[in-house]
């Protein structure tokens, strides 16, 4: 009886995983297809990968995505971390007001965020392009950094900072030496969060740039015109990089965990 139940459970999980991964797996398999039609295998080939790397518009979209992700994550992490430290030391009423305001862009539908920023830029007569894209990405990244750092500030023992001041440490130095190291895990989480959000974003980007495309916009434009095996090759590369990245992050997290346990 127990065995039947466990078999049934495993079968169910397997079916859901099949649903989640079959489309991605098919995409990756057919990225090595020599022919152009999906669903008909006509031999192994790497030609779509070659064409992908020779496609100037896709390559520039890739570099836009990566540079915007790194720059916006970096700037959002600095502004967001400072903001969290500031918010943490505010009086209770101001603090809850600022925190509620910070929730707005997280709760607001992406399409509204995108349109409101587009209207702002057009209102100020700023032409849409790389800069507006960067500003938009920083804007939607900051709240996620703030909410990754704030819990770490709350967990931190308050008297450490005061002890440093009592022992003659200057406030700025105490912040670098005492606060920043203690909230570092929160800062790193926030930065990774910002990086992935930026890479993944389509809707906000779609409204806040013109002429300069990131990968999402390029894929949308191509997908509307129909299927192209070049996108398959691109998906395969993105998927493999994500899996590798997540594996590294997880192994690192495990190692930190194990190290802590050994010390204890």
């Amino acid at each position, binding site marked *: 009886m*127990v065995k039947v139940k466990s078999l049934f*459970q495993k079968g*169910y*999980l397997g079916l*859901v995983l099949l*649903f*989640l991964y*079959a489309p*991605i797996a*098919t*995409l990756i398999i057919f990225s090595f297809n020599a022919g152009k039609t*999906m*669903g008909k295998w006509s031999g192994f080939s790497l030609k779509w990968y070659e064409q992908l790397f020779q496609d100037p518009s896709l390559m520039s979209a890739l570099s836009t995505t990566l540079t915007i992700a790194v720059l916006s994550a970096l700037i959002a992490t600095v*502004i*967001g971390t*400072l*903001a969290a*430290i*500031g918010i*943490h*030391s*505010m009086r209770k009423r*101001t603090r809850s007001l600022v925190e509620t*305001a*910070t929730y*707005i862009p997280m*709760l*607001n*539908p992406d*399409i*509204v965020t995108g*349109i*409101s*920023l587009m*209207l*702002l830029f057009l*209102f100020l007569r700023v032409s849409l392009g790389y800069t507006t894209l960067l*500003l938009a990405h*920083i*804007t939607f990244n*900051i709240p996620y950094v703030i909410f990754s750092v704030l819990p770490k500030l709350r967990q931190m023992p308050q008297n450490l900072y005061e002890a440093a001041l009592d022992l003659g440490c200057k406030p700025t130095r105490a*912040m670098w030496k005492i606060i920043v190291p203690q909230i570092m895990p929160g800062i790193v989480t926030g930065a990774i969060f910002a990086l*992935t959000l930026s890479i993944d974003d*389509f809707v906000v980007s*779609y409204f806040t740039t013109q002429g300069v495309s990131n*990968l*999402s916009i390029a*894929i*949308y434009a191509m*997908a*509307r015109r129909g*299927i192209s095996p070049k*996108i*398959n090759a691109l*998906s395969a590369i*993105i*998927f493999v990089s*994500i*899996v590798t990245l*997540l594996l590294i992050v997880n192994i690192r997290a495990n190692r930190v965990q194990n190290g802590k346990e050994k010390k204890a």
Partner: protein
Amino acid sequence: MKRSVFATPYLIWMAIFILVPLGIIVYYAMTAAAPDGGVVFTLDNLIKAFDPLYMGILGRSVWLAFIATCVCLLIGYPVALILTSRNFKKGSLLIILFVLPMWMNFLLRTYALINILDNGGVVAQFLGLFGIQNPKLLYNTFAIILGLVYNYLPFMILPIYSAMVKIDHGLIEAAEDLGANSWNVFRRVRFPLSLPGVVSGITMVFMPAVTTFAVSRLLGGSNFMMYGDVIENQFFFMRDWHFGATLSLVMMVLMLVSSFIFRKYQDDDSGGMLW
């Protein structure tokens, strides 16, 4: 020096890029282009936004998102339940597999779906083995719902799983010691304690699903517009920014109000005792 000054750059940033833009949306929503090239204050756009045509599309979007959310819940809840059950040792490893697709760009996921559903695609070939020829799998309501479920299922599984992992095993054992059978343990202990996760999951699927655009365009073809598509249309095809802003305003108010209601249920500690 007060430490709260560190928040100043953020407060300025927030004012310029969050508060002012929302103000501009309200401004555009309440005005229209005047014949002389200026703008005039008017409520016409707001009235037009409540026209049955647009309300109908909004209703349709809510309905499609609702069905997709229900399907995600029906598929996702058992997954979280199995992964956290005691006889299942590798749950914490397997959950990574279930949420991994979440990290892949949603356009790529949608594109992958188009690929296998297309004429002559893998699914059509598979169905062909059973004698079903040329099934219409794309460019209909079914395809949109499937696309929403496929994109948002991990967002349902993860919060429910997190809520269930946190359940104190002592409570389950106590219920068993007191003679509850496995159904009663589920009904009285595991299910009520998983509810905050269910509410989070519903929010994380339903909200983005209602406001989605592009998924419906890619999977449903041009005949099946959702509210997001109509808004986009106003800006890029109709060139009526004022009315586009009005529709955005309607959607924003709807979403902010409902997420604050949802949030109340998520934070409320007694929320789990509803049953």
